């Protein structure tokens, strides 16, 4: 895939696990952030073991790339609804008002200190897949030199037309 070597992969929901990702402390109102955190956790656990190791020599140059065509629609809707109502906005909605926030959670937990990037591909990836846009960008970032590994996470929430939340994570390095 685009000159990338895959170190680990994970999908959510995963066949043996629960359908719902665990709640994520500090985040509310939306399944998006727990989904991103759960699939990232599963991928990193498969590569590094059950608990974050300290220090992991590669972590300091591991970047994060979140790709979501739909983004966190539930949080966006909650923000718009709260603003329109005139009621006081829950403060947690500020903290999760952009997709970088959950990447900060993952980066802090695993010590990943490379670039932090979020994109919105024009087309949502199918369950179990990473958008080609994200793979191309990961390859560019690796070639450019600020990271040796990239954790790519694709996440989409169910929309009004149906479907289910789904996420895919791959940890890649240059082939």
């Amino acid at each position, binding site marked *: 895939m685009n000159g990338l070597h895959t170190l680990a992969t994970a999908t959510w929901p995963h066949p043996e696990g629960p359908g719902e990702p665990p709640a994520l402390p500090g985040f509310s109102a939306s399944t998006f952030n727990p989904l991103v955190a759960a699939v990232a956790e599963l991928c990193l656990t498969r590569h590094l073991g059950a608990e974050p190791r300290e220090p992991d020599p590669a972590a300091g140059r591991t970047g994060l790339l979140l790709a979501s065509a739909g983004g966190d629609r539930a949080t966006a809707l909650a923000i*718009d609804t709260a603003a329109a109502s005139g009621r*006081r*906005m829950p403060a947690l909605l*500020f*903290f999760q008002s952009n997709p970088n926030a959950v990447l900060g959670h993952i980066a802090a937990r695993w010590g990943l200190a490379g670039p932090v990037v979020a*994109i919105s591909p*024009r087309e949502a990836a199918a369950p179990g897949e990473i958008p080609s846009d994200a793979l191309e960008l990961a390859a560019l970032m690796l070639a*450019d030199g600020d990271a040796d590994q990239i954790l790519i996470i694709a996440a989409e929430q169910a929309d009004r037309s149906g479907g289910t939340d789904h996420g895919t994570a791959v940890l890649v390095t240059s082939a």
Partner: protein
Amino acid sequence: MSSSAPPAARPVFTGLGVLSAFGRGLAPLLAAAGQGRTGFTEVTRFDVARRGTRRAALLPDPPPLADAVLGAVTDAWQQAGLPDRPGDTPVLLALHSDLHTGAVADAVAGGVAALGLPGVARVYTGACVAAATAVADAAALVASGRHPRVLVAAGHLVEPGVFAAFDAGRALARDGELRPFSTGRSGTLLGDAAAAVVVEADTAAERRGALPLARLAGWGRAGDAYHVCRPRPDGDGVARATRSALARAGVDPSELGYLNANGTGSPMSDLAEARALREVFGDALAELPVSSSKSVHGHALEASALLELVVTIAALDSERLPVNAGWLGPDPEIGLNLVLAGPDRPRPRYALSLNSAFGGANTALLVAAA
């Protein structure tokens, strides 16, 4: 840290376009920045009666967001002197992630198609470093020889949801003034902006006789690995991004002539950034003019890094550096050589624009006189 592969080309800027609270074009923005004249006014665009802070830097009658972006794109395109249907030119676009992101990107894609461009190649939604990330990627695409030029655009217009969220998160300045690095700073203020830049290979620009406005000499990115939204207190991520940009350009910290800091006016974030600068620049920091142009034009979120990059590029061509407005007096923990209203200075050969965002994302863009 830069790649060991030699670059195929050096990226330069051949066109800039900007819309800010001061109107369309670079001249009114630079006049305000050079005088430290801020664009903040009472918000009347939507109801802020229940908000703790009620000020932002706003256009009086803003166009729809996609039209604002397309105006900046058109200006950048015309300044670059590019022909219709220039061929291989991806468009990278930075926008806020919300319920309208896809529709705005579609409208921008339709508009750029009129210039003969193939649409929007990628949409960046990574908060306050979204546009700087797009510029770094544009530089990588050009320097590696993948494309002769890339157009980067960004837009953010202040709207009620984001304003209310920032207010609820106590991120906005309670006294209605953005005071980066100053004693008494209490938070940021939002601002409208759209901006666009043409990043082009120096060889491609030379072949068509285009005069570069500046060079994009270096770029760097690094993460804090610290917290969902709080900056790492020692500024290590900012420092590593800055060192990466300087190393890529082969520029010694003492050669820098101006630094446009992230400087949101947040008590914690400004202090972390100042610590990062002390770590990178050491004794040279005492002589380095620093300001945050956000103090004049406000924080334009996903568009902020591109707006500030345009201001930073313009600083290369001026003896009057952007003023750090809102200054009340020194914070003894900060200790920066801030640009306050005062005498003209020598034109900088190199200038740096820094940005940081939620998730501990940090970017550094180093520009050089052409």
